[in-house]
Every structure is written in C-alpha cells, then in structure tokens.
C-alpha cells in the first residue's frame, strides 16, 4: 500500500468536483481528483443536449462540451486526475482509501492523507418496484442514457419511460435521437415534473405523456416484451379497469436521484433528510463545509440539483478549502463567495427553483443549530 499526501483531495470528477479542484489549484493547493469512471466529467459526458442557464454559465452549450472545457482547465491549473479510481473508504482523520484499476486487471488500494477533502460524488438513481422489474430490459433512465450516449448501444427499439422529471423528458428525447421510439411516458403525479419546454419537445415528436398513470407490470420471455400501464387515483392507487398493454422491449425508470452520501456518513458528517433535495444529504455551511471540519461537499451529494448549481457549489468548496489552508485571504474569499451566492440565488428562482432555495437554506440553518448544540 502506497502512502500519499495531498493538500486537497476531491472525490468525484463531475462538474462540482472539477470546479472545486480548479479553484483550489488556482489558489496554489496541491490538488488531486479521484473518479470512478474512465473519463472525468461525471454526468456531463452523457448530456448531449444544450444546457439551460445564464450566458455566464455557458448556457446553450452542450453538457459534454462543458465537461471538455473543465478538463482542459484542470490540466492548465495542474490538477492531478486519477481515473478508474474509486474512493472506497473515508477514515478519520481525513484519510481516503482509493481502489485503482479495472475489474479484469490489476487492482491496488492506495491510502491518501488529505489536509482538506471535497466530496463531490453526485447522486444515484432511485428504483421503482413493480411486477417484472427484474426482467432484462428494465433499467434506470440514466443507465439507458449512458448506453446510448457513451457506449453508443441502443437498449431497445420501443421504450416505455416512467417519470416526467427532466431526466425522464431529456432521456426520452435522446432515445429518439438515437433511433428508438418512445411509446409512452407515464407519470403518477397529476402534473409533469420537469420543464415544459422539454416536455413539449417530446410531445411534438409524438410521445404521448400520461400524467396520473403508472406502470403495473412488465412481461416477457427472458426480456421485456410488453408492459401494462394504468391510471391511478388521487392516492396513487392503480385503477385496474383502465389497464392498457403496450408492446415495448424496454422500460426506463426516471424516478429521481438521491445523493451518494456513504463516504460522508463514514466520516460522521451530520445529515438532514429533505425530499426536495433527494433525501439524506450532509449538513453544510455557506462555505460548503460539513460538520466534520475540513470535509466539504458540493454538487448533487449536497442535494440533487443541476450542473450549474454544482459548478458554483464546487467553486465555493474549492475557494473555502484553499482559504482554510491559508492560500487565499479571508477578504478575497468572502468577496468571491458573495458573488457566487448571488449567482446561486439567481439559479434558484422560478417555480422549479424556489423550493430548492428554501431547502438549501434549511440545510444551512440546521448546520448552524448542529454546531451550536
């Protein structure tokens, strides 16, 4: 086992982790990013669509291109990036165990000591259980998106999408771009969850969106061949008399994401449950520091939001980590942080954003009461 010492170790190379690393390295910290994947960029490398946001956030640029820009900037700032490297443990004080290598080749575990740690591990997909949900052909929407946009393999020809959040809407669109047909999208809630413009895109392409509907069962010999959907009542109970069978070979589930918080829990970071943020997420202050001093969070791990907010939270974490190591003065750090918070507040407006703004401020309030307790 090799030993390794770093000033800042960032776990996860998505938009949050990369922007944290860039800021830390810019301020002169010796910075390492470890990422489980073959390429860094996190979710961005699956996002072939043009992003929302303000022109200040590279709006209108495709996610995949934003990822490329971040990687180039990391290189320029001298950030070290380890790929195919999974952080498998986080021990006190601020020691990270990283498994490097491939399943089919040599693997080794490296133990890193870090002065500061930024956890930016993102989120994982929620499952929905129904009869037949273990059949091949039933998969997470994010998995289907990885198949088409990263591996360039079509998971099936005729798809039933479950869930009308932005992930369900965008992945439906991208499945059609990849050559599949989306036979229907069902959403148990009475209204579409994601942005209207994303819904309109797939409606225009002929995808029927059934709100107040759910999936009952997927059937098939060895893999999905058909699926039943039906309407639900206001308590989300299925109304069996409305059952309809669709000839589909793929059922994709977009039922939300939850923060990947295991490492934070290993280091006893205090958590808070908030449904708007995807479930349990670590408490943090306005500098993104958790209740474990020196451990910061940024991006979806601190509450599922968007790439734009992940980028800004990453900057907050990177600058604050550098400040606490004495690499940047308090006045400068405060000025930059207040600019970032201004942009974050702007992103958390509108009917989709205010709930997140509220939830994030509850997180910070809980952090304060946890600290004073």
């Amino acid at each position, binding site marked *: 086992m090799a030993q390794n010492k770093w000033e800042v170790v960032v776990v996860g190379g998505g938009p949050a982790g990369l922007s944290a690393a860039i800021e830390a390295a810019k301020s002169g910290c010796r910075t390492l990013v470890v990422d489980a994947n073959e390429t860094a960029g996190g979710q961005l490398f699956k996002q072939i669509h043009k992003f929302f*946001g303000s022109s200040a956030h590279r709006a209108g640029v495709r996610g995949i291109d934003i990822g490329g820009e971040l990687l180039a900037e990391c290189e320029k700032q001298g950030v070290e990036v380890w790929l195919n490297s999974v952080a498998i443990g986080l021990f006190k004080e601020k020691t990270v165990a990283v498994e490097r290598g491939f399943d089919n080749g040599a693997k080794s575990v490296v133990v890193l000591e870090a002065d500061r740690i930024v956890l930016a591990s993102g989120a994982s997909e929620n499952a929905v259980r129904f009869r037949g949900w273990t059949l091949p052909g039933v998969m997470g929407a994010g998995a289907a998106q990885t198949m088409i946009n990263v591996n360039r393999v079509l998971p099936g020809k005729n798809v039933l999408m479950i869930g009308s959040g932005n992930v369900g809407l965008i992945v439906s669109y991208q499945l059609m771009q990849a050559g599949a047909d989306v036979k229907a999208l069902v959403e148990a809630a009475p209204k579409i969850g994601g*942005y209207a*413009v994303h*819904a*309109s895109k797939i*409606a225009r392409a002929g*995808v029927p*969106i059934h709100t107040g509907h759910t999936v009952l069962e997927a059937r098939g010999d060895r893999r999905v061949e058909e699926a039943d959907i039906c309407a639900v009542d206001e308590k989300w109970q299925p109304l069996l008399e409305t059952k309809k069978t669709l000839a589909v070979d793929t059922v994709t589930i977009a039922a939300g994401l939850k923060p990947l918080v295991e490492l934070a829990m290993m280091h006893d970071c205090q958590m808070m449950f908030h449904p708007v943020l995807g479930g349990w997420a670590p408490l943090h202050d306005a500098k993104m520091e958790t209740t474990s001093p020196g451990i910061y969070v940024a991006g979806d791990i601190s509450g599922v939001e968007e790439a*734009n907010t992940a980028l800004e939270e990453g900057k907050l974490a990177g600058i604050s980590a550098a400040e606490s190591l004495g690499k940047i003065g308090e006045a400068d750090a405060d000025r930059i942080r207040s600019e970032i918070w201004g942009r974050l507040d702007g992103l958390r407006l*509108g009917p989709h954003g205010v709930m997140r703004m509220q939830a994030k401020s509850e997180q910070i309030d809980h952090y304060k009461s946890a600290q004073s307790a």
Partner: protein
Amino acid sequence: MSVENEGYLTIEELKAAGQYPSGARFQEGPVAVIECVQEIPCNPCETACRFGAIRVGEPITNLPKADEGKCTGCGLCVARCPGLAIFIVDKTYGEGLGAVSFPYEYFPLPSEGDEVTAVDRAGRGVCAGTVVKILAPESFDRTPVVTVAVPVGKAEDVRGIERAGQAGGQS
C-alpha cells in the same frame, strides 16, 4: 393547463401568456414565436438576438419578452434556445403558403425538396409540407434548423415534421 398535463401548449395558452405575435405582425413577414411560458433559469435567447428583440433581464428566471416590432425573423435565436422553443413563422411565404422554421436534431436529416408530413405541437400530422430550407452552419452547434412550406392556414399549428421511421405518427 395542457402543457402541464399533456406536455404541449395550445395556442390559447400561448396567447394567454402574452407572447404571441399580433395578426398585423404576421402579415408583415417572418417573425419569431417564443413558446417558453415557464419561469426557468435560462437566457441564451436574449444574447442570441442582435436586434435586441428578446429581453429576459434579471433574474434570469424571467420569461423571455419578445418585441415583435424589433424582430426581423432572421432566425438566429432558433438554434440557440436549449429548450428548442423558438419557431419562425412566415405567413407571407407565397401564394396561399406559409413557412415554419424549427430546430430538428434527429437522424436522418431531411433534404430540401422532400415531401413530409407536418405535425403540430402534439405531434399529430396536420398536413403535407415541403422542406424548403435546411440551415446547419457551425454556429448552430449541431442544431439544424429546418423550414417547411405548408398551407398558410396551418402555419400557426405546424411545429415540426414526422421523424423518418416514426410509425405513422401518434393519435
């Protein structure tokens, strides 16, 4: 609202949002129709328009406001909108003909001269159309903009074409 349940806007919803071009403006020639009625954090349309015809301002969750007097119908904003929510409608295209331009990111791309089935906001086939223009310069960043000519009476309904290989549209 239909857009919250079925996913597509109706003309009535659009008009109620106060963003729909006037009948008089339609008679003057091509004009942008911005079909973005939800407050989302987004503003590239504003910087895309060099005539200052679209304003979002601060905060960026404001709805885009179009100034039909300033809009020349040039179409530069269409490929820049990540929501694919801007269309150019020209009700003066020709004798009895209108033209609708829309972003089209599917394969295969149609060719100029193709006879196609034009679809409305709900993806329903509404009439036959002819592809009259396809623009895909580098600045559009892989979002081609297709223009179809359709009977002028359908120009306010048509918002796309049936995808090649799509099984006969949907009901």
